């Protein structure tokens, strides 16, 4: 069945709320409005105001409330309207949710999911366009999921809601409307499993979220030039599917990591270091990176498109790594 990614996410939320009455959702404009992207339209009528909570614009407060409710055994799914807003509610995420299981010697678990749209390309300028997954992967105690397809988004969100750890679930805004096939019926995709979206033998493009599509487009262009690229969609950044990374690198011996977020201190930097440390002998060339510039997301469409990677940048990056 074909469905949009936003609908697939809505289905995951709906199925989990039907399955488990401890699951509830809260955030700004989730209820009466049904979320700014329409993901939870109709939920309030079906599940009631108790389980579909319209919060005031108080991210720090309602994120903390969700963490406290999770400490008591509920399974809240929080929505931040944009991941950029993490700046006003980082304490309950970083110092509370991420740390309390460890700091209490395992007495407390925090089964909370933080959902947020990410990404540039909607001409929303610097405070509504960031990809902040690197910030979240830097915080021990969080799991971080960045799906690219409708099928993955649904299966991974269901896994995230059932997980007993805090999970940051990042959805690219420009993927919401994409219509894709998803499996019929109920299914789960476990966290921490990467997916080869295109097999290839000459180079591994490691990426996630929207850049998966750009990498696939780049792979087609490269194929016409005789370069067979494998596209590995990580899907989950923490826990990282290192087995899948190693397997692919040992097959192609060339790696290019593609991410939309800024290059400095990015997830790609970390991955590049790990591959270089542990798989150096497998590499025919230094690990390449194609990433967002260390620049604020600009408003002007011309400027914004220059800031983050597009398929032609990936093609160029792969050729550079391969010396072609």
């Amino acid at each position, binding site marked *: 069945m074909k469905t949009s990614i936003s609908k697939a996410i809505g289905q995951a939320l709906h199925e989990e709320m039907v399955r488990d009455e401890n699951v509830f959702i809260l955030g700004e404009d989730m209820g009466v409005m049904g979320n700014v992207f329409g993901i939870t339209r109709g939920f309030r009528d079906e599940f009631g105001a108790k389980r579909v909570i319209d919060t005031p614009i*108080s991210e720090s407060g309602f994120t903390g409330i969700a963490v406290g409710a999770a400490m008591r055994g509920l399974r809240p799914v929080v929505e931040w309207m944009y991941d950029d807003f993490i700046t006003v509610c980082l304490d*309950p995420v970083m110092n509370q949710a991420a740390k309390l299981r460890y700091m209490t010697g395992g*007495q407390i678990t925090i089964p909370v999911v933080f959902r947020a749209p990410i990404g540039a390309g909607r001409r929303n300028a610097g405070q509504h366009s960031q990809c902040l997954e690197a910030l979240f992967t830097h915080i021990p105690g969080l799991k971080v999921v960045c799906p690219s397809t409708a099928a993955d988004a649904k299966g991974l969100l269901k896994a995230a809601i059932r997980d007993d750890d805090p999970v940051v679930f990042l959805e690219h805004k420009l993927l919401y409307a994409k219509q894709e096939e998803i499996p019929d019926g109920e299914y789960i995709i476990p966290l921490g499993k990467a997916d080869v979206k295109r097999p290839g033998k000459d180079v591994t493009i490691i990426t996630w979220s929207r850049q998966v599509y750009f990498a696939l487009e780049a792979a087609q262009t490269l194929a016409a030039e005789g370069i067979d690229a494998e596209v590995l969609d990580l899907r989950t950044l923490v826990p990282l599917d290192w087995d899948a990374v190693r397997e692919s690198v040992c097959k192609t011996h060339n790696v290019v990591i593609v991410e939309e977020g800024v290059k400095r201190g990015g997830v790609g930097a970390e991955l590049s270091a790990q591959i270089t440390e542990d798989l150096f002998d497998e590499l025919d060339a230094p690990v390449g990176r194609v990433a967002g510039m260390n620049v604020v997301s600009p408003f002007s469409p011309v400027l914004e498109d220059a800031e983050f990677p597009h398929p032609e940048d990936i093609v160029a990056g792969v050729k550079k790594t391969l010396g072609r």
Partner: protein
Amino acid sequence: MKKGAEKCDAQWYLEAYTRMVRIRDFETKAADCFTKSELAGNIHLYMGEEASGVGTCLALKDTDYITSTHRGHGHCIAKGAKTDKMMAELFGKETGYCKGRGGSMHIVDVQKGILGANGIVAGGIALAAGSAMASQYKGEDSVTVAFFGDAASNQGVFHETVNMAATWKLPIVFLIENNQYGVSTEIHRVTNTDTMAVRAQAYNIPGVTVDGTDVEVVYHAVSEAVARARKGDGPSIVETMVYRYQGHYCGDPAVYRPKEYLAEGKSKDPIDKAKKKMLKMGIKESEIDAIDAKIAQEIEGAYQFAKNSPDPDPAAVIDYMYSSDNERSVLR
């Protein structure tokens, strides 16, 4: 509610006194260990504020919840935490409440409804409201008390949380312990109201300021707020005026406050005050002395337990990070 609580009779006072002395002795011992470098890190002492924590927790049931602060020893003991497991945690031992992963600022005993002390000033306020939301959601009649200080009530999350709790009628009591100092800064240098409780008006909820050195006064004020919360009528603010005998942390000479502050505080010492009341009620001094001796023995036992307990295994440093997929989530 404890037996005889309505009128705070002799039996009630014996319990209140026991808990206050337990806090005072625990901290006296902890401070001594800290001074002798037996403890690592830092501790923030609650000494002088005992009536606030004990009066509050005596107004709660075992099934009620609290969140606490960096100055949390007193709240945890008042709510029933075991002093041996607490002392072991201060010593960073495997037998401590948090297996040595948390320390003094992070005592938690979920079974006792202690959802955690917290190292972030105001960090527990929203968590407490989340606990209250869980009670409401599950249809339980439990109440949560958020302990925090005067300075924490100047954090933005205080406003956000009280507003939501009031709007949603969450079963919570915001318990502000006003010791008049945020680390070194006297509260009126950074706040434009005489009391913190006056802010309740802004949220259309009750707010009272009471003498936090009198355990009975605190008990009655909190009981009223708890009853309101339990009935489903929503939150209240209770502000207890207290004195922090020590500096911000153990060893802080507190040069930033006038000598009169401490003298005034000690003249209203909550334990002395309770003892005077108890003698007046006809409780024998020997009975009170027996409590002192029993607690002294308990605390010495807690110290021996902590000192003789094993350290955590360094090979287990990653344990308890994640509920599932722990090794993979930590190592990559």
